[in-house]
């Protein structure tokens, strides 16, 4: 990527940060809190995703 491309993409990423900031603040201040067992219900499928990615890497090596 050339310097011009990097600068254009950099500006876009900064714009994205500005765009994400209100949503981030809103979820931090008014978002629902996790109850018991909620994180377990997320960690299990995400661990399976990690396992799948490792398997796919092993397949192409």
């Amino acid at each position, binding site marked *: *990527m050339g310097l011009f*491309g*990097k600068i*254009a*993409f*950099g500006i*876009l*990423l*900064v*714009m*994205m*940060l500005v*765009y*994400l*900031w209100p*949503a*981030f603040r809103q*979820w*931090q201040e008014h*978002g*629902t*809190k*996790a*109850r018991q067992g*909620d994180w377990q*219900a*997320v960690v299990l*499928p*995400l661990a*399976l*995703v*990690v396992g*799948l*990615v490792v398997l*796919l*890497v092993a*397949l*192409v*090596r």
Partner: protein
Amino acid sequence: MANDYTIVRGAGRVRGAGRAVETNKVLKNTYLLLSATLAFSALMAGVSMAMAVPTSMYLISVIGAMVLGMFVLPRTANSTTGIWVLFAITGLLGFGLGSILTVYLQLPHGAQIIATAFGGTGLIFLGLSGYALTTKRDFSFLGGFLFAGMMVIVLAMLANLFFTIPALALAISGAVILLMSGFILFDTSRIINGGETNYIMATYGIYLSIFNIFISLLQILGIMSDE
């Protein structure tokens, strides 16, 4: 008293049934529109590959799609214009993706890498959507964590744009896959629990998760296969 209670319970049931019908409608429309936009993206990727557009087109397409997604789609999502804007965004992303796929196809095992990334993305999406739909658990508590994660990743991408560290690029791709997997759970659960009633915005969210998982998986498999 008993009658009042029955009436209130009855009204609640009618409201509950109405909400379930509304939720199913949003869910059905979201998956229909998602299928159509994914097919359109694939078509545009095919056009881009046939035209052999340069890889710089990817950056131009992503910038165009992000500008449309940030400034135009939220203003048009409540009208039919929103559907055309969504097709423009997904078409642009598909067109840009085609230029990346052309590069991968020139690698010795490029076709295998693309097929593996495609299959992996499909498995991740179907598995996580199926999980969110069957458990019916409310994943809205993930909101703060996911948006914080997004901001950290954008900052890391910004840093790597100028420092160009391959290990950081790999770490970012891995983090994007995990974060987008979380977004699939979050977005699907919001549709089921009535948090998202606009199927155009719901489709946009899920489409972006799928697209980002595919691109990141492609990058990881490309790096790890020593191609």
